[in-house]
């Protein structure tokens, strides 16, 4: 449903993307993780037709976004910034979006009512956007992005700045969309968000995808156990066996916790942090287990 092949983009000789390829199937949620400046926003801007790549192809529902502007009708986007008209009402914002996507008046009204219902904002249609909270504005943006029934939805950090409760509500909405068959491309800085929602995750570093897989496989690739220095002075070490992690922790000066690995560990490892192999300490010493904060097999 979404397919990108060898996307490349430079800004004044500074490469932002260096050959990025991925595909997202209908009903799949693909999370795209990377540090600031890795190329996440550039990717999403290319895939929503906001920026032209230097080379590569970008397809949505089989249509080439770069050659066929009408292909944008198959794309929905929820930007990181709240880009609603604050002075206008919720209904007016949705109506303008429907007009931009060539929807008839009847269909605009039907779809606006339907989507405001789905995001639980039916009673706020006539409220000016500036009177809504951040969480409600984000819901309006989701309703707006979906009212023209796109095949692909791009979410650029959709829960940034929202409190945990609202974030969970947005997650539930995203899961509903996924179940309805929309291909979803998500960028986020919240690793737990990707872990909770994504079917597959890609790690992006310096304009290149360094790993793509299911969250489970990405975690397993670094080992089941992490020994983490609680002071943050030493990098985390990852182990397949808990006993090895405990032994490694025992070698350290103290303040080392052993716990099951997470997607965040896999991400940090992909970004060049942490070590996959135990250091010389493990070979030199053998002793009792150090501090343990988490136990039990995963």
């Amino acid at each position, binding site marked *: 449903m979404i397919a990108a092949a060898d996307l490349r983009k430079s800004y004044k000789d500074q490469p932002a993307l260096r050959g990025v390829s991925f595909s997202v199937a209908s009903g799949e949620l693909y999370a795209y993780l990377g540090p600031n400046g890795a190329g996440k926003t550039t990717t999403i801007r290319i895939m929503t037709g906001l920026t032209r790549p230097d080379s590569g192809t970008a397809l949505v529902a089989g249509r080439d976004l770069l050659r066929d502007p009408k292909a944008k009708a198959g794309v929905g986007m929820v930007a990181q910034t709240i880009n609603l008209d604050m002075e206008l009402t919720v209904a007016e914002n949705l109506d303008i979006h429907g*007009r931009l996507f060539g929807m008839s008046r009847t269909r605009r009204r039907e779809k606006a009512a339907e989507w405001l219902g789905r995001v639980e904002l039916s009673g706020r249609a006539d409220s000016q956007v500036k009177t809504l909270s951040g969480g409600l504005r984000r819901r309006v943006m989701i309703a707006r992005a979906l009212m023209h029934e796109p095949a692909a939805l791009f979410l650029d950090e959709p829960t940034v700045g929202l409190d945990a409760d609202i974030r969970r509500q947005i997650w539930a909405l995203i899961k509903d969309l996924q179940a309805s068959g929309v291909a979803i491309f998500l960028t986020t800085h919240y690793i737990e968000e990707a872990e909770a929602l994504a079917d597959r995750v890609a790690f992006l570093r310096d304009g290149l995808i360094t790993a793509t897989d299911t969250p489970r496989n990405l975690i397993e690739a670094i080992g089941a156990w992490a020994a983490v220095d609680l002071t943050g002075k030493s990098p985390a070490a990852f182990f397949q066996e808990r006993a090895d992690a405990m032994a490694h922790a025992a070698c350290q000066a103290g303040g080392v916790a052993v716990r099951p690995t997470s997607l965040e560990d896999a991400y940090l490892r992909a970004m060049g942090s942490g070590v996959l192999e135990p250091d010389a300490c493990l070979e030199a010493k053998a002793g009792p287990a150090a501090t343990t904060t988490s136990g039990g097999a995963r």
Partner: protein
Amino acid sequence: MIQGALAVYYREMALMRRRGFRLLAGMAVSPLLYFVTFGQAVGRTAQMDGVSYAAFLLPGLVAMNSMMQAYSMASEINISRFYFRIFDEFMASPIGPAAYVLGEVMAGVTRGLAASAVIVLMGTLFGVDFQAGPLFWLGAMLNAFFFAGLAVAMAMVVRTHQDQATLTNFVITPMAFLGGTFFPVEKLPGLAAAAVWFLPLTHASRAIRLASQGRPVPYVEWALLAGAGLLCLLLAMRLTRRVQD
């Protein structure tokens, strides 16, 4: 393309309706001050070009105010582009850059005509002797068309609000004072008098002023305003397309 342009235009009109009185008051304050100060206080008994100074000044204010309001689209677009990021909503839709520009220019023309209507109302209330026939409005419309196109083009070039303010200070404000609003440009000294004929506002002021006095407007004025407006429209379309690169 028309459907997309109408969507953009509809959004601008919705905002205009929402701002209502605030917007109209903003359109009226400066010209009212100019009109009261120069037209009524200073020029009550003065004559210019064979008419009262108030009758001379009024079409100049129409040209200036329609220019200002049409050009204010540049600030609106800048705010929507850099602050609210609503510009991305347009660019991510299937309407295309040409439709976007056309919609914004149509909105600029509407603002220009509304600003002209405010001056006409003001002149009527003050009992100024002038005619606001079809050619008068054609002049105001072509003037707004040119400056709305220029506004969209400039909005695609500037990078910050500060750039926008600088451009307004160095281009639009001098034009407002030198483009035949307050005095006949022939009164300027030699080279300056020749130079101001390169300003579009000079031609707009002249066309609107002649029409307001019921005198014939040379075809060249219409051709210049329409041609320059069309060039700005095409330039704006080209620059908007470039924003995506």
